[in-house]
């Protein structure tokens, strides 16, 4: 038993090889996980709702997936599926699948539109956790 204790003390305090290995493995693992995990970078814009369309000022790239519409972010956010993106006369029109879901919202709203994908690494270590441009 005493021998095990001595070995334990030796490799934790006097010759901390385990310490170095741990740091190496953990830092590598964290870097790997954070670099390979992708999260959306959102562009928050003023938007207006017209039936099954959400109209945003400015020209944006075509995007698929979901965008998030809300009046007050802290109250409720409505995720809606984008079916089509059209650019028209300096505005971008997003056609959405389920217009009924937005019936409780006023005409003028805010929309979080996925603009890009960034790694978790960038989001945590460089952007301080922010997901909005």
């Amino acid at each position, binding site marked *: 038993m005493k021998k095990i204790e001595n070995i334990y003390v030796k490799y*934790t*305090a*006097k010759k*901390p090889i*385990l*310490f170095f290995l*741990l*740091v190496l493995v*953990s*830092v590598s*693992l*964290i870097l790997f*996980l*954070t670099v390979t*995990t*992708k*999260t*959306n970078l959102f562009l*928050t814009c003023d938007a207006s709702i017209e039936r099954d369309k959400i109209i945003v000022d400015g020209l944006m790239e075509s995007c698929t997936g979901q965008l*998030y519409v809300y009046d*007050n*972010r*802290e109250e409720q*956010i409505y*995720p809606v599926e984008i079916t089509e993106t059209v650019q028209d006369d300096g505005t971008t029109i997003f056609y959405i699948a389920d217009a009924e879901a937005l019936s409780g919202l006023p005409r003028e709203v*805010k929309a*979080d539109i996925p603009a890009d994908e960034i790694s*978790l690494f960038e*989001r*945590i*270590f460089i*952007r*301080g*956790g*922010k*997901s909005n441009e």
Partner: protein
Amino acid sequence: MNKKLNYFTAIKFLSKYIRKHKKNFSLIYAGWFFNNLLRVFVPITFSVMIDEIVYYRNIPVFFRVSLVFAVMLLFSCILHFFTETQHSYLSIMYAYDIKRDIFDHVLYADAEYLSDVKTGDVINTCNSYANECMHFVVQNIIHMLNKAMLLILLVVYVFLFGWQIGLLMLVVVPLSVFVSIRFGKKNRQYMENQRENEAAYNGWLYEILSGLRDIRMMGARETADKSFLNHQKKMIKVNVTAEFLTKTANHALTVIQLLIMLAIYGVVAYMAFENNMTVGTLTAVLAYYSSMTFQVKDMTGMYLRAQNRISFIQHIYDLLHSPTEKDWEGKADLVVTEGKIIFHDISFGYQNRPAIFSGLNLTIQPEDKIALVGKSGEGKTTLAYMLIGFYKPREGYIEIDGQRLCDCSLKSIRENIGIVQQEVLLFDGTISENLRLGRRDATEAEMREACQRAGILDYIESLPDGLDTAIGKSGVGLSGGQKQRLAIARIYLKDPKIIIFDEATSALDSETERDIHNAWADALNGRTAIVIAHRQSSVLLCRRAAILDGGRIAELGDPEDMIRTSSAFRTLFAVKEAEAYD
């Protein structure tokens, strides 16, 4: 006079001990650096998890981020473990280093310094003050740097959330520093008083506990109790004030931090209203503020405690800068062939006290046996101890066989002079280990012969383990006479040309003293001896007696003659005049 230490000079003084363990320190800081990074990034990771699930209901991303969060926490826990083990190891080694230095310094400390210092104070210095130094280094160098590092990282990241919040949080730092410095200075004075009171109390306690039997026999319990209460009252008064000051400082800091937290809540509420703040970010901001205030409070608390500790460090600093025997300049080897001693025009006085000797002259011929007698405090022991380099004369010089003592090394001086004292030093160990204090390389045969000549071999051989018998607290107890015989055996092993007997038989009964005197007779053959004694029987063994009075040799002569011719001699030994002529 040594310089007065402040917070920064105390760090500078103690930093040399850090340099001995660079590897461990590097490991601690490497560990803490990663840990601090995690402490900054874990709240942000958590905020990402919250935002992804609360706002965007992104379950896959939530789980991936949760995995990263879990790995970070696990890494943090294990890292914390390794860092703490290094930290504990280093604290123990550090305490050992400083105790080693203190003890080493005490071993070599100038005899004059030791005569002024209380035993309780020295014990405190070697133990509890050394521990305070260790705590100071651990908290105020290691932890403080770590916390400063974390604080900087937190401040940098807080500004990413919003410059308004960042500025508000920064306000905490200078306000806390201001409060700490104001209270710290006041506290230090109280702690200095506390340390002095504790040192006095420990010294008093040591003396009282050593003489408990005497206290009971003299019926002095009440006096001892009153003295105890006086000591405690002084300590309580100072301790209470010091504690109140510390608590006031801590609570003042808490109030400042609460007010700033309220302001932060206001700013955060406004930002949330303007949709510039998410729930996740809010969580991270509050976590950062909590962490930041904790670090600031901890740092200011450490600074306040450091002020308390500086008085202990000052004491150690003064001790480690006090004169030691290593400052003795003589390097030559003392060679004693005859044993002629000359005290030439010696003047000496302890620091800040009146002179004991003033122009004292005494010549001791080779193989002479001379008794130094006089009233208590006349300096008999001091004069004899000057021979072995414990004290340096302020004026005049001492010569042995034509060599000035100040030119010779202490090692060679002490190799040539043996001393037998009233209290014989015995370590917890075997008889042979204790005998080897006389000469380290003494063989068993030599030890047996020395014991034979000292008249203790029969007793040793009667013990089951003989020379390997354990003596001291955990072994066989020896009587006063047996201890004196061991001391004589050491003299035989050491074989010095000059011997000093310093009240060696004062504690023995007359019969035992007679036996010991018989044992001396052989030991003194061919050697110069100085006998310091209050007993006439010891003085009469000598060919000459020197009476010390008023810092000089007042009378010198054959003790048998002095009984008849010297009233001072008769007074000293309470010899009635009629008896002198019997």
